[in-house]
C-alpha cells in the first residue's frame, strides 16, 4: 500500500525525529511512503482565527498536492482533523470543489488511526527498555479524529504496568492555537494543571499524537524545570520497538 | 410494564430522590401517622424551622376520596392537632395564610404519581390547597396504588394531551446546593416528604414466601 505523508509544519520546524520515526514504522509495516515535497501548511491557523481567504488559499494548494494520493497520513491529529472536517465548509458556493475536498478528507488519516483502522495493527511487542510512560489524548485526537483507547492500547502492550494513564485526560492542555498567545494566563493555568497531572504519574516520557500540544507541553515543562521528561510523538516510541 | 413493575419503578426513583415511601393499609394509617405527628410536636433535632404552631396541620378542603379526609381528621384530633383548610366562602375558597405558614405538617391527597421521575402530581383547583404541600416543613401525601402512572408522557396522553390549568410535579423535598455545593433540604418548601401508598405492597421488601 502506498501513502503520501503529511509532514505538518510543526514536524517540519521542530520534530524531524518524530517524522523520521513515523516513516520507519510505516515502512516496517510494508507501506510505501511518498513525501510530496511541494506540501506546505494545512491552513489550520487561518481557519481557527477566522481568516477565510488565507485558509482557502492553503486548502487549494493542499488539494493540488495531495488529491491524487491513495491515502494521506498526517503526523498530527489537528492537521488531519483540519483537512477532513474543516476544508469543505470553506467553499460553500462550490459544490464540485466541496466534493473533491470531502473525498480527499475521507482518504486522510491521522498516523495512529491509520495503523489501527487501515493497517489493522493490533499487536505490538514489548519495549526493550522499561520507562514510565503516559499519554496525552489531545482534544483534536479525541473529538476531531474520534480516536480513543488505541494509542493507550499500544502503549500498554509496550510498557505493561509502566504505562500509567493520565488523570483528567479529557481536559484541554490549554494550547488552542492562537488562544495560547491571546489568553496566555489561562493557557498557562491549563498547562500547569496538565503538567501537574503528568508529574503525578511519575512518567519519564509522554506520548501524544498531536504535535501542537507537544510543542506547548514541552515548552511549558522546560519553563517549570521539568525538562527531564521526554515529550514525543507515539510513532517515535513505536519505532524503537518496530524499526530496529 | 405491569402495574406492580411500574409501582416498583416509582418506589426506587422516589426513594432515590429523598421521598419516604411507605405502603400501608387503611387500617394502619392511625398507627403510622400518629408517631409522625408526635415527633413533630417534640423539640427534636432538627428544631422546627418556621414560627411553628406545632400542633397545626394543613389540609386541602376538596379533592379527597370518600372518607379519607375524615379519617385523617380523626387521627389529627386524637394526636392533639388542629386542622387548617381553605375556607369555603361566597365566591370561592380562601386560606388564612399567616396561619397556614405556621403549620408544621401538610397532609394532602395525591391522586396520581409518576414512576419514571418519582413525582407526585399536584393539580390546583378550588379548595385543592396545594400550598399545604408547599409551606409546612413536612409534607405527607396519601395515594392509592392505582394512581401510579408510568411517566409524564403517559399522564399527558391519558388526558388527551391536555393539562389541568395549574399543576406542580413534586419530587422529594425542597433542596439547594447553592452554598459550597452542599446539599440541604427545606429551603423554601418542605424539608421532608412522605408518601403513604394505601392498599399496596412495598415492592422493595422481600416477601416471606420468597
Amino acid at each position: 500500500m502506498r501513502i503520501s505523508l503529511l509532514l505538518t509544519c510543526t514536524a517540519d520546524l521542530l520534530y524531524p525525529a518524530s517524522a523520521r520515526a513515523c516513516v520507519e514504522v510505516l515502512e516496517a509495516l510494508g507501506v510505501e511512503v511518498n513525501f510530496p515535497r511541494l506540501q506546505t501548511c494545512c491552513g489550520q491557523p487561518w481557519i481557527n482565527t477566522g481568516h477565510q481567504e488565507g485558509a482557502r488559499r492553503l486548502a487549494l494548494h493542499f488539494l493540488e498536492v495531495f488529491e491524487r494520493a491513495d491515502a494521506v497520513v498526517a503526523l498530527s491529529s489537528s492537521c488531519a482533523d483540519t483537512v477532513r472536517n474543516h476544508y469543505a465548509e470553506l467553499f460553500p458556493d462550490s459544490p464540485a470543489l466541496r466534493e473533491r475536498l470531502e473525498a480527499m478528507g475521507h482518504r486522510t488519516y491521522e498516523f495512529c488511526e491509520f495503523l489501527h483502522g487501515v493497517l489493522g495493527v493490533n499487536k505490538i511487542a514489548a519495549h526493550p527498555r522499561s520507562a514510565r510512560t503516559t499519554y496525552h489524548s489531545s482534544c483534536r485526537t479525541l473529538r476531531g479524529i474520534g480516536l480513543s483507547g488505541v494509542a493507550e492500547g499500544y502503549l500498554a502492550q509496550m510498557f505493561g504496568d509502566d504505562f500509567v494513564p493520565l488523570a483528567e485526560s479529557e481536559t484541554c492542555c490549554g494550547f488552542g492555537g492562537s488562544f495560547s498567545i491571546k489568553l496566555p494566563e489561562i493557557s498557562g493555568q491549563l498547562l500547569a494543571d496538565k503538567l501537574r497531572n503528568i508529574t503525578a504519574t511519575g512518567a519519564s516520557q509522554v506520548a501524544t499524537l498531536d504535535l501542537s500540544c507537544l510543542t506547548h507541553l514541552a515548552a511549558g515543562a522546560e519553563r517549570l524545570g521539568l525538562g527531564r521528561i521526554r515529550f514525543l510523538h507515539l510513532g517515535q516510541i513505536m519505532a524503537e520497538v518496530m524499526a530496529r | 410494564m405491569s402495574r406492580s413493575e411500574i409501582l416498583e419503578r416509582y418506589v426506587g426513583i422516589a426513594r432515590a430522590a429523598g421521598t419516604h415511601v411507605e405502603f400501608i393499609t387503611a387500617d394502619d394509617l392511625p398507627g403510622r401517622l400518629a408517631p409522625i405527628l408526635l415527633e413533630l410536636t417534640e423539640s427534636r433535632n432538627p428544631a422546627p424551622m418556621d414560627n411553628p404552631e406545632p400542633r397545626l396541620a394543613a389540609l386541602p378542603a376538596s379533592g379527597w376520596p370518600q372518607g379519607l379526609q375524615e379519617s385523617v381528621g380523626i387521627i389529627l384530633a386524637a394526636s392533639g392537632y388542629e386542622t387548617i383548610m381553605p375556607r369555603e366562602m361566597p365566591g370561592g375558597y380562601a386560606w388564612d395564610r399567616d396561619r397556614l405558614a405556621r403549620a408544621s405538617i401538610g397532609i394532602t391527597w395525591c391522586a396520581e404519581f409518576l414512576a419514571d421521575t418519582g413525582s407526585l402530581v399536584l393539580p390546583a383547583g378550588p379548595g385543592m390547597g396545594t400550598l399545604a404541600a408547599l409551606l409546612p416543613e413536612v409534607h405527607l401525601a396519601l395515594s392509592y396504588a392505582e394512581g401510579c402512572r408510568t411517566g409524564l408522557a403517559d399522564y399527558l396522553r391519558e388526558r388527551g394531551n391536555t393539562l389541568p390549568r395549574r399543576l406542580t410535579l413534586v419530587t422529594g423535598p425542597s433542596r439547594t446546593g447553592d452554598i459550597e455545593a452542599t446539599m440541604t433540604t427545606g429551603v423554601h418548601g418542605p424539608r421532608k416528604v412522605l408518601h403513604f401508598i394505601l392498599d399496596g405492597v412495598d415492592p422493595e421488601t422481600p416477601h416471606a414466601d420468597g
Partner: protein
Amino acid sequence: MQINDRPHDFRKASVSAVADKVLGAAVRKTADIFVSMRAASIAQLAGFEDLRDWGRSRKLEVSGRLEEYALEFANRIEAAGAIVHFAHDAAEAAAIATDIAVKRGAHTAVKSKSMTAEEISLNEALMQAGVTVTETDLGEYIIQLAGEKPSHIIAPAIHKDRNQVAQLFHRFLGTPPGLDVDSLVRAARKTLRDRFLAAEIGITGANFAVAETGTLVLVTNEGNGRMTTTLPPVQIAILGIDKIIPKISDLPGFLTLLTRSATGQTISSYVTIITGPRKPGEEEGPEELHVVLLDNGRSLLARGPFREILHCLHCGACLNQCPVYRAVGGHAYESVYTGPMGDVLSPLLWGMKAYPDLPDACTLCGRCAEACPVRIPLPEYHRKLRILRAEGQTQWAAGASAAIAANPLLCRTSLGLLRQILAHHEGLLNGRTEGALGAWTTCRELPRPGAGPGFRTWWRNRERGSL
C-alpha cells in the same frame, strides 16, 4: 444587559481571575460535581443520544418559525386569561414590567431566578420605580446581598464559600457569625418566607413556554418558583421567545434533557406548570398573570447563521465542561451569559464592539458541543464569530502570511529560517515581553527544534542514497 460601557477586555479580567486560587477551586469544585452527576445520570438513560437529536429537531422547528410560534403561544395563554405584552427590546421589557408595578401601586416584589430578567436589567428598573425586589433563589439572594452578578447560569453564587455567605447573613440578616450551611439555609428560609407572604408582585422567568396550550413551565429545586407563582396577587413572567416549545407532548423530553444535563437530576424537585392566572374561586395563584415576551434580537438571530444558539436550554452543561470557564469563573466574562454559550450569545445580543474578545475565549476543545443537550455547534459558532470579526478588519497580514505559506519555496525558506533562529540564535528572540513572543514566553520557553537535519534534508539524502 451589557455590564460595562467600554469594550470587554477578557484577558484583563482573566488575569485576576486566574490568580484568585480560592475562586478557581470553588468554581472547579462545583463544576466537577455537575459534570460527574450529569455523566452518571446520562449513563442510566438508554437513548439519551437519540433524545438529543430529537431535542435539536424540535427546537429547529421553533427557530424556523419563531414569530409564528410566539404568536400561537401568546394567543393561547391570553385565551386562558393572561395579559400578554410583546417587548421588542430590553428597555421596552423593563418599562412594561415597571408600568405594571406602578399601576398596581406595588412596592414589594419577589423574584424567582431568571436570566432573561438579568438580560433586561429588570431589578435596576424596578428599584428606580420604587419597587423593592427580593431574589428568592438562594444563590441569587446571596449575590443580591453582596451586590454582585451571577457567576454561573445554574448556581449563581458558585464563587462564594460558606464563610463569605455567613458574613453576608451576619451583616444583613443579623444572624450570628460563622453559621454552618444548614443554619444559613434556615435563616434564608425564614427571611424569604416573610417576603413571599408580603409580596405584591411575583416575578419569574420560564424554562419552557408551550405554544400549543399556552403554558409556562418553571423548573426549580428550592420551591421558590411555586411560591412566586402562588402567593403574590400579581405575577409577571418574563421570557425570551426562544423558550417556546411546540407541543405539550414535547415537555417530558425537554424536561429530561434539561435536568439531566444541568445537575444530573432525573427531574427537579418542582416543576410548576401554569396555563393562566387563578380562576375565580381558587385560593391559590395570582389574580393577574402578565407575560412579557422578549425579542431583543432573537427573531433576527433565528434567520441568520447563528440560529441554533436560540435553542439553548440554559442548563449550564457547557460551562461546567469548559476549560476556560473553569479557569476563571463567570465574572470574568462581564456578561449575563457566560461560558461557551455566553461567548456566542453576548456578542450577538450586545454587539461585537461590546464583546470583541469572547469568541477567542475558547481553545476549540469541543467539550461544550459534546455536552450540549440540543447539539448546538458551539465550537463552529466561535469560529464563525471570528470570521465575522476578521471580515470587519483589514486582512493584509493574514493574506500575506497565507501567500507565503501556500508557496512551497517561500514556506520552506521561512520555516528553515525560523528553525535556524530557534536552534542557534535564541538570543534574538529572548527577553521580548510584547506581542506574540511575549505572550508565549509568559509561561513557556521557546520551542527547541530537534537535533540533526530537518526532515526534508533527511528525505532528500535518503532518496539520493538509494539511487
